[in-house]
């Protein structure tokens, strides 16, 4: 152990004397700190704005004047997705998915206004976030510091004398690894800061710790790769060329190839296409605006029989409101079925993408990071789900008011009779039925489960590299 420490200390002394090592470390640390600060401020501002808009939308709905409840069904409501606390580190899908949805009767709208749609377009790599800096650029520093670890000793001829003094290759690699692990620990400090800030903002400690562990594992994979190349390849130039290639392929080429591959192998029907397919299937279904639709004849007969009356006008409830309730219920069941299909197709495409994680740990760390931060596809779907639950709740609440607080005679004459129309306007206190909306990420344990699959992938990458290093230790020659 003391040998390991001595080797690690020697490595640190070497780095501290190297202008190259110091200046690259300074550049990267600056980059990490700057993106961490800028992203944290931006996400905080966006969170404030969306909370404010949400409160404004709720106040607007609840302060509407007296009117027909079905007008309120179409007046509708807006929900906004507030970013999760850890989004200040990994905004994930937040900038590419819409942030607000308009909720109204009979329809499930899409999420509108993605930030990328309105942002200045400065190329594919301009959306720099702390998570992305860790995923793509922190490895560069590790490669730069680690590439020379063994090959330097070999080129200088010191490897032979070290081994002649009885130093085993395993101890040498362990010492060098120890030095690089200490670099990883230092590199993780800005992330630890972000995680701590998120915990202060209400994030679960478990999610923050797991996020830290995920990035530690990922950076250790790079430590392993650097050491492996340094131990096995003959010259420094060869090591550098090999490591550069690995970095280029893992962080830039394969992720984009994977995205194109997933799009080609699992085609995704868009929402329009799914909607049109649904409309074709729905054509059988009835129109809830029209209580005389033949499809509602059975419902009408049942209601009359149930209340023992002969005429719709004598029912204690407004038939139109009942029809609105029943048709919204049936329609929503269908809408949900197709929305689920659409989401399942999106998940299938995401899984096709995940399979590429066996070829590059970048995909695994990115997925685990988004899952833990609460900014992944599952959370986008969670937002759509919660928005739909709220939509159904207030629309059916209004339909209940429609059924119970309005007289059928007034309701049928409101388009032609001004006084009847005035009587169909119900008291605005009914608009208080709208529930508050506040989007929260899933509980930390659920997010951890979501991150488990890519986490296991990262673990296997580490394991494979550890075995590779053990095998390499036997082959290290001066």
């Amino acid at each position: 152990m003391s040998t390991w420490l001595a080797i690690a200390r020697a490595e640190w002394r070497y780095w501290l004397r190297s202008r190259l090592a110091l200046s690259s470390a300074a550049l990267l640390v600056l980059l990490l700190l700057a993106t961490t600060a800028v992203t944290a401020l931006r996400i905080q501002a966006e969170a404030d704005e969306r909370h404010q808009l949400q409160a404004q939308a709720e106040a607007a709905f609840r302060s509407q004047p007296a009117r027909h409840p079905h007008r309120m069904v179409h007046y509708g409501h807006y929900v906004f997705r507030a970013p999760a606390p850890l989004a200040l580190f990994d905004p994930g899908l937040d900038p590419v998915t819409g942030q607000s949805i308009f909720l109204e009767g009979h329809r499930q709208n899409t999420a509108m206004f993605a930030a990328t749609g309105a942002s200045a377009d400065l190329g594919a790599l301009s959306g720099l976030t702390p998570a992305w800096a860790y995923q793509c650029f922190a490895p560069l520093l590790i490669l730069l510091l680690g590439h020379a670890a063994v090959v330097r000793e070999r080129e200088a001829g010191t490897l032979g004398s070290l081994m002649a003094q009885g130093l085993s290759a395993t101890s040498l690699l362990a010492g060098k690894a120890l030095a690089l692990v200490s670099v990883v620990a230092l590199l993780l400090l800005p992330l630890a800061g972000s995680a701590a800030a998120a915990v202060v903002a209400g994030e679960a400690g478990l999610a923050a710790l797991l996020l830290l562990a995920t990035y530690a594992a990922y950076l250790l994979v790079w430590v392993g790769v650097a050491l492996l190349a340094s131990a096995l390849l003959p010259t420094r130039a060869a090591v550098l060329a090999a490591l550069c290639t690995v970095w280029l392929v893992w962080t830039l080429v394969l992720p984009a190839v994977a995205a194109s591959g997933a799009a080609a192998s699992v085609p995704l029907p868009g929402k329009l296409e799914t909607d049109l397919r649904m409309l074709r299937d729905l054509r059988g279904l009835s129109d809830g605006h029209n209580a005389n639709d033949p499809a509602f004849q059975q419902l009408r007969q049942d209601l009359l029989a149930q209340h023992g009356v002969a005429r719709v006008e004598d029912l204690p409830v407004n038939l139109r409101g009942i029809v609105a309730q029943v048709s919204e219920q049936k329609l929503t069941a269908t809408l949900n079925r197709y929305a689920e299909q659409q989401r399942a197709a999106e998940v299938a495409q995401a899984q096709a993408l995940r399979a590429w994680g066996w070829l590059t740990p970048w995909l695994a760390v990115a997925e685990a990071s988004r899952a833990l931060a609460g900014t992944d596809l599952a959370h986008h779907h969670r937002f759509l789900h919660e928005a739909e639950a709220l939509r159904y709740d207030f629309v059916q609440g209004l339909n209940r008011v429609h059924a119970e607080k309005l007289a059928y005679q007034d309701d049928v004459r409101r388009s032609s009779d001004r006084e009847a129309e005035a009587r169909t306007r119900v008291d605005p206190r009914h608009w208080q039925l709208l529930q508050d909306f506040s989007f929260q990420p899933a509980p930390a344990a659920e997010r951890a489960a979501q991150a488990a699959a890519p986490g296991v992938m990262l673990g296997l990458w580490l394991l494979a590299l550890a075995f590779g290093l053990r095998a390499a230790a036997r082959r290290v020659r001066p």
Partner: protein
Amino acid sequence: MSVLMASGSSAWRREAWLLSRDRSVWGWWCVALLLSALAVVAGLSEVQQQRATIERLVAADRADRDATWQQQTDWGSAAYYSFHLTYDPPSNFAFAALGRRDDTAWKHRVRLLALEGQIHERDAGHPLLALIGRFDFAFVAAYVLPLVLIVLLHDGQASERRAGRHAWLEAAAAPAPGSTAMPSLWTLRAALRSAGVCVAGLLPLWLGGAAAGTDGSTLLGATAAVLAYWLLWAVVCAAVAAWQQAGEVILAVLLALWLVVAVIVPAAGRWAVDRAVPLPSGAAITLLQREAVNGAWDLPKATTMDAFVRSHPQWADQRQVSRPFEWKWYFAFQQVGDERAAALSQAYTEGRRQRDRWAGWVAWLAPPALLERTLQHAAGTDLPAALAYEARVRAFHAQLRNFYYPRLFLGEAFTPEARQTLPAFQP
């Protein structure tokens, strides 16, 4: 020695011969060819998928509208219930730069209701793929191949220096006194290596262009832009490689340079432009439009009709609304709602255009972004193209209004056959 002391043209031949036996260089050329080919194939496949999607949508949309019309008995309900597909087909160069087609919608279905409530709906692709970005030619050309050039060119002189051959090679390759000036050995080597990368990188683009039927001029322009960009990188790499430093130092400097122009300047520029050009919040447009549209139910009908007639004076004589509900009034307040939100909506569009213009200037400091934007512009997949599509959707909505207004305001009898004369969206 006599070979090395030969004239300029034979120096080219000699270096070419040496290069032809260098397996690592051939390896990198193959990598460049493979990456470019992969990108072009992926782009072609994506464009073909988008075309197939549009074809399916057009058929499904017509079937849906036909079925909807069969149930209608008046113009108002026909206008209310029938949706119309609009779309922006990919250009014949879109395969090379998929651009904004990933995160902005290129297909919409609209109806006669207030457009501001509809046009921001977005049926975009998979958000995860949009986040990661596609592997298209523009990405390979702007970000990946410069890295290949860096790896290929950084060690040219340092490795010879390490091997102790540098001074000898320079002396040997120096032109004989009195002979015409010729490029140095190092320039020659860098030029040959980069030329191979250029050919390997461009070949798939030309083949893809031929397959997609791209215009010659577009292809030529793109080739010129890409060549100029790669030449810039080759010159920079060769210049830094001439520095008397170890290979790893040169590599680190070049990587840092790549990082600055590909990531740091674009990210900082984007942040700065977004801050410098404020944009009305998109939600503000839809909230305002909704208040205007829904508020109309509670306003005196004359208020709405007067506002409508101000922008549509031709219907001044038909402004009377006698019943609590009439379709012409309903669609008039939809239009008035749009007009109320028009200033905000225009500010939103103009702000996006302004941000894009500024981004175009900042891109001169970040050549990778500049090349990507240039290719996206040629491919019609940049923001101005997306905004132009939005404008076409607005124009189509106006066509729909022009079709329905006379029928609604003059109280014409409903004729189901009129379905055949409905305006059709022309992409």
